[in-house]
Structure formats: C-alpha cells, structure tokens
C-alpha cells in the first residue's frame, strides 16, 4: 500500500496523520483516505473532484500531471505527498 503524507499546514485545520492506503492511482488512494476521513476531501479537492488550485500533489518527487482525473499511477512502495502551493497573504 502507498504511504500518504499531508502538509503540516493542513494539520492546523484537521487531523490527518501519515497513513497507508490501497489503490493504483492517486484517485484510488485518496478515495480510501477520504472514506475514513470525509471532511478531508473538501480541503484537497474542489466541488468537482479536481485538485484545488493552490494544492499540489506529488507521487514521490514528481508532481502529478492529471489534476482533474487524478489518474497518475501509484505503486505499493510509493509515497503520495499532499502539499500546499506557496502563496502570500
């Protein structure tokens, strides 16, 4: 199962520890995470299930290429890292 890690900045809003989840794609992995923690979904994805504009998802060192379908492949030994894009304020 892939390991899923969330930016520390997200922890300020809700509990989302490092965890493992099954799935062959980013969508599949995250759907398992969201099933256990439904509130997390709206922090990562927008109303239509796309990655939020200011959130970035990586598989290991590579930023995913499909922010709409989240079809990027994930292997058992991979790490899915959910980061926030940097912005001012």
């Amino acid at each position: 199962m892939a390991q899923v890690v969330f930016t520390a900045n997200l922890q300020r809003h809700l509990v989302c520890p490092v965890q493992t989840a099954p799935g062959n794609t980013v969508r599949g992995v995250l759907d398992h995470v969201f099933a256990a923690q439904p509130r997390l979904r709206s922090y990562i994805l927008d109303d239509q299930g796309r990655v939020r504009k200011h959130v970035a998802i990586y598989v290991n060192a590579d930023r995913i290429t499909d922010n709409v379908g989240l079809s990027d492949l994930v292997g058992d030994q991979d790490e899915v890292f959910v980061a926030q894009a940097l912005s001012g304020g």
Partner: protein
Amino acid sequence: MSERLLIGTRKGLFDLRRDHDTWTVAGASFLGDPISMLLADPRDGTLYAAQALGHFGVKLQRSRDNGATWQECPAPAFPAGEADAPSVSYLFCLETAGADKPGWIWCGTIPGGLFLSKDHGETWSLNDALWRLPERKEWMGGGFDDSGVASICVDPRRSDAIVIGVSTGGVWLTDDAGASWRPSGGGMHAEYMPPQRRYDTTAQDVHRLVQCSAAPDTFWVQHHNGVFRSTDRARSWQEVTAIRPAKFGFAVAVHPNDPDTAWFVPGVKDECRIPVDAKLVVARTRDGGRSFDVLTEGLPQANAYDLVYRHALDVDASGTRVSMGSTTGHLWLSEDSGDHWALIAGHLPPITCVRFC
C-alpha cells in the same frame, strides 16, 4: 441596543463587547484564516462563520455556545457533474430564512449561486431555479473572477418572498421561496456597459442591497455607479443623485424602523476606491435620499485611504448604533446614528464583515 459586534477579517474573527461604555476585543477565533461572512441567528443563538482558506477552499464553522467553541459543518458546494464544472470559491453572504423556518439558512456564493440549508448548515442544496436561469450566463465578475450573490433580503412579512442582489447580475425576486425567479424592474443603469445595454436589468452591479425591516417595500442599493432606491419592492428603481461627496461605494445600511434613513461610505470610482480627498466620511440621508449629511466627526480627515467593503457597515436593531470597519483594520462605532464616531479598534487585519448581534 446591541452590546456585541462580530468582526470578520482577513486574519480571523474578532468578538467585541460593550462594557461600561467601552468596547473591547473580548476574543478572537480562527487567527490567520480569512473570514468572508458572519451570521448570528437571532432565532436560536447559533453563530456561523464562513472561511475562505487560501489553499484549502471555503469552509463553514458553527458555534452553539455563543462562540466559545466552533465545529466545522459542510460548506455549500455545487453538485458534481454540473455543467461548466463550477466550484464554490467564496461564501459571500449568509442570512436567516425567516422566523417561521427555524434552522433554515440561505447562503449566496461566488460563482453566483444560492444555497439553502434546512438543518443549521448540516446539508445544503443549490437553488436550481436561479442557477438555471438563461440570463445567468450574462452575469459577470465584479472585482472577483465570477459573479456573486452578495445580498439576500428575506421579507419579514412572508419568508417565501426573497430579493437578492448579484454583483454583477442585477436584482432578482422570488415569491415562492426560490421555486421561480424574476428580474426586478428597471431604473438602474450601468455606465460601464455598451450604450444599448446600460439599462439591462441583468447587467447591474449591485454592490449591496438592503431592505428596511419595518417598511419592507423599501430597498436601498449601493451600485457600482450610483445609489438607487425602490419603494415598491424592487418593481422600479430611482437613482438618488444627492449622495455626496461621491456616488461610488460598496456599503449601505438602512435604518430598521425608518425607510428614509440610510448610510453610505462614498469613495472615488472606479478602481481607485479610496476616500475622496483622503477624508473618510459617512453619507447619511434622513429624507429618502433628497439630501445627505456628510458625517466627519471622529473620522480621519487627512491621509485616510480606508475602503469599507460591502458587508462591513452595519446598524443595530435600534437604528442608533452604527459601526463600520475598513481595509486598514480600523473599526469605528457611532452611538448616535452617525453624528459622532469613535475608533474602537485600530490594528485589526483588513475587515470584510461587521455584524451587530
């Protein structure tokens, strides 16, 4: 009179209380997080705070213990698979749905949707009739990327009768709790439109729409290019040209018991958006817009570059206490309907929303 003010800012919610004639910041919540709208439900005491998190989207927080603790509840969201794939980017306004509908809350959003919760914000449904209006395709963003439902006025006589203001998209009415909508009558004009479209009811940039509680047929609008008033429940609008020192602004508040009394905070149009001559003033009419007092006592009259956003001016239920907060984080309050103002907080983050409760 109200003894409490809730202030939504770019960096959190601030709770001000009046104690022995002094207003103080009694508490702060959500520090660091932008607050777009606040609602104190007088029917059951529930507080709602809408957030616009920069990275993680819109959120809705609810408190049932007067603000001591908050719980996140689901925010309004467009159904998955909706044409054009919309996603709520901002919770623009929150209003109670009427005394006869406890727990019902209306929410206006950017993009310009209207949502209803019948269970204190636990679940939300998109108002399909408004969203599917053919004219909605003509709505435009006004300072934001998309149009927004910025004002919701529920008639105190009959809660199924609702009037909303859209920026940019005009004024819309329903008499059946949102099952059907019709545009308001004419009278507004938009100087920024092509000449053939200037009086188009769906092209009007209604920065803020307010309704007099005691005389609900009277509405006031601070429009992008002027002030308008209706005394026939939005069937027609008359421009109020006596406003000074400028007709541009965002905020308007109407006296709850006197439909002829309203307050505005004029600024320099269009994208400039600063006080005229760098002097912050409030314009008040007491005669239905025939004349205005320009109120300056206690307000900065030099080097003031404050802008008061559309939801950052409020009057309490007595019509005597008026408060406004600005983009520079200054918060003023008047105890005498605007004749004299006092700065009650001077170093808050930029203020988006001011609500007496």
